[in-house]
């Protein structure tokens, strides 16, 4: 056998370091005004991570409000149709509000309340994180402002209305490319201005330290459950995990509890959009290079002058030019592999799962499904694959219909 490329477990475990680094990635790249507030957030998070009462409250919320644990479902007909490995779906689509995003917003909102903050802000792309934030803000009686790119507000009109029904103010962002990255810029500007009473709930494993680690820790419930569930159902660890990667939170949440399990292959699936070769994609790990944006060093889509490029994906939740820094490190160390799936491949997988299993996936999750089909054939019968079904697809039916020339 060839020499294995697996890194020593300690190369990827126990990170980030004191200052938020995952190897050369991560860190704290923000204007001075935010350094104090980020230190305060880090202290609070470290404190409550070890606080039994906080953890008990979080567990209760996840169980009774979110509906956890989410099932690990054996997709029999889909597995048969694909013809290969057994495919398991981690059903984050069944969470309250319909995606994994709520695992994180429940955690951060509880933290915000403990820190005495009365106002919550968030950025959102697809609107799923915005909805999950508006939901917990309503639940806890906190004021909520969500920043959303003007372009995303058009393509995710239903989620905009959901947020408004939940009592949130949705602020359109018209600067730059008018999508998720610009919404993040605008949320940061709000935070720097209102930092005394405001808690910024970032929706993915990106941003300045401690966000990448904190969001990962809140999302790791996905992987902890999946690990116990697959052991219970099959008596062994799976051969591979597959998850889509926008900023990377659902993927990191699933991967993290398996990092030390060297036999479990990890696959992150980025959005290849119209094809990596066209440039119209959102795949920084597959086709970008390291740089600094939004408070951390990571892989980015940027031009030769270091300006951030516009991205394209059919799924608004993957339409982001950066990615969480821990993924950058998992890529460089070889612990995880990153691939990309086009709009059309994701759409095909969307239809397949809907028709064969009666489960309509989010277009983001459909990217993971499409790659899982390829992988299942490659690994063949006898192998076990867990795919993170990060969200449900109701929010996307207008996009799917429009893509197919159907007017609703």
């Amino acid at each position: 056998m060839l020499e294995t490329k697996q890194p020593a477990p300690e190369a990827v475990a126990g990170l980030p370091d004191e200052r938020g680094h995952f190897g050369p990635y991560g860190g704290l790249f923000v204007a001075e005004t935010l350094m104090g507030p980020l230190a305060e957030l880090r202290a609070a998070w470290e404190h409550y991570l070890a606080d039994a009462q906080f953890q008990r409250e979080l567990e209760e919320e996840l169980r009774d409000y979110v509906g956890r644990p989410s099932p690990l479902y054996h997709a029999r007909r889909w597995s048969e149709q694909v013809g290969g490995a057994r495919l398991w779906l981690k059903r984050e689509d069944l969470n309250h509000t319909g995606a994994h995003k709520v695992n994180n917003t429940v955690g951060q909102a509880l933290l915000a309340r403990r820190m005495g903050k009365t106002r919550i802000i968030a950025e959102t792309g697809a609107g799923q994180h915005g909805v999950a934030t508006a939901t917990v803000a309503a639940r806890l009686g906190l004021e909520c402002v969500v920043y959303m790119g003007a372009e995303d507000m058009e393509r995710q009109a239903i989620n905009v209305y959901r947020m408004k029904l939940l009592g949130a103010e949705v602020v359109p962002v018209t600067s730059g490319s008018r999508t998720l990255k610009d919404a993040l810029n605008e949320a940061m500007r709000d935070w720097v201005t209102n930092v005394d009473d405001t808690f910024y709930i970032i929706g993915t494993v990106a941003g300045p330290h401690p966000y990448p680690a904190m969001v990962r820790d809140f999302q790791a419930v996905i992987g902890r459950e999946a690990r116990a569930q697959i052991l219970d159902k099959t008596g062994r660890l799976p051969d591979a995990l597959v998850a889509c990667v926008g900023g990377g939170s659902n993927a990191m949440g699933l991967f993290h509890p398996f990092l030390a399990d060297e036999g479990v292959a990890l696959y992150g699936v980025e959005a290849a959009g119209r094809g990596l070769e066209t440039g119209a994609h959102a795949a920084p790990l597959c086709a970008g290079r390291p740089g600094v944006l939004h408070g951390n060093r990571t892989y980015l889509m940027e031009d030769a002058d270091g300006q951030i490029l516009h991205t394209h994906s059919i799924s608004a939740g993957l339409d982001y030019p950066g990615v969480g820094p821990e993924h950058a490190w998992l890529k460089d160390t070889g612990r995880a592999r990153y691939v990309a799936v086009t709009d059309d491949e994701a759409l095909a997988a969307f239809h397949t799962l809907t028709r064969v299993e009666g489960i309509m996936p989010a277009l983001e999750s459909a990217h993971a499904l499409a790659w899982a089909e390829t992988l299942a054939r490659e690994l063949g019968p006898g192998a076990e694959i867990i795919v993170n079904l990060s969200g449900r697809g109701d929010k996307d039916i207008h996009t799917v219909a429009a893509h197919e020339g159907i007017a609703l």
Partner: protein
Amino acid sequence: MSRLAQRFAALRRAGRRALVPYVTAGDPEPAATVGLMHDMVAAGADILELGVPFSDPMADGPVIQRASERALAHGVSLRGVLSMVRDFRHDDPDTPVVLMGYLNPVETMGYEAFARAAAEAGVDGVLTVDLPPEEAGPLLAALDGGGIDPVFLLAPTTSDERTRQVAAVARGFVYYVSLKGVTGAGHLDVDAVRRRVEHLRTLVDLPVGVGFGIRDAASAAAVGAFADAVVVGSAVVSRIEQHAGDPAAARAAVAELVGELRAALDGLPAAAAVRQAADT
């Protein structure tokens, strides 16, 4: 002694404060920038702050964001900005120029290559908004090699301990961000800023500049009463924006504003006297 240190020493001897106007390089068009720089010096600027356009200016308000977008629409790159500085230096060997921008373009160019090119072009200071001292080591080493002063921000949220850390690596001057907010915000509390600046002087030996939220002659004079340097950004850029289609008119409007700011600062009693009064 660096050009920045010399300039501050000369101002101090003369009992004057530095007027530091900001423009984004390449706004409203690349051909206008060098002329604007000379005009600002002629109208009374002591130090120039030149913004390097970036696609994601997280710490800037709408006015400077739009300036960045106008410059980027003309394809202005970091190398382009450096060649503007080189052109400016050709006719002005004395006025210090500080680049203000974000890390990614510098990182893309490479720290060493950037420091070398910036030094050659005649850049005196570099303020990288999203680079706190904790992450700055490698860039500091490169800038040091080029004899360029790293300028750092201090904020209302900066603790004394952090202030000392920043002071230990900063050169030229420190830049106190007068409010919690982005550039161009409008809620300046002059008394609070005065108290903070007086406190900072007990922790930092460098000259203290104040910026963010200074928009006209009155606020410049109010802040100039206790700061060593007054930085005016969005107000200058607004003048450019009002005349974005007519660069000659933009230059005239900027010169007019800088002249007003100069007059307001020069109407103040000598800085040394103010400093002494604050000490007693």
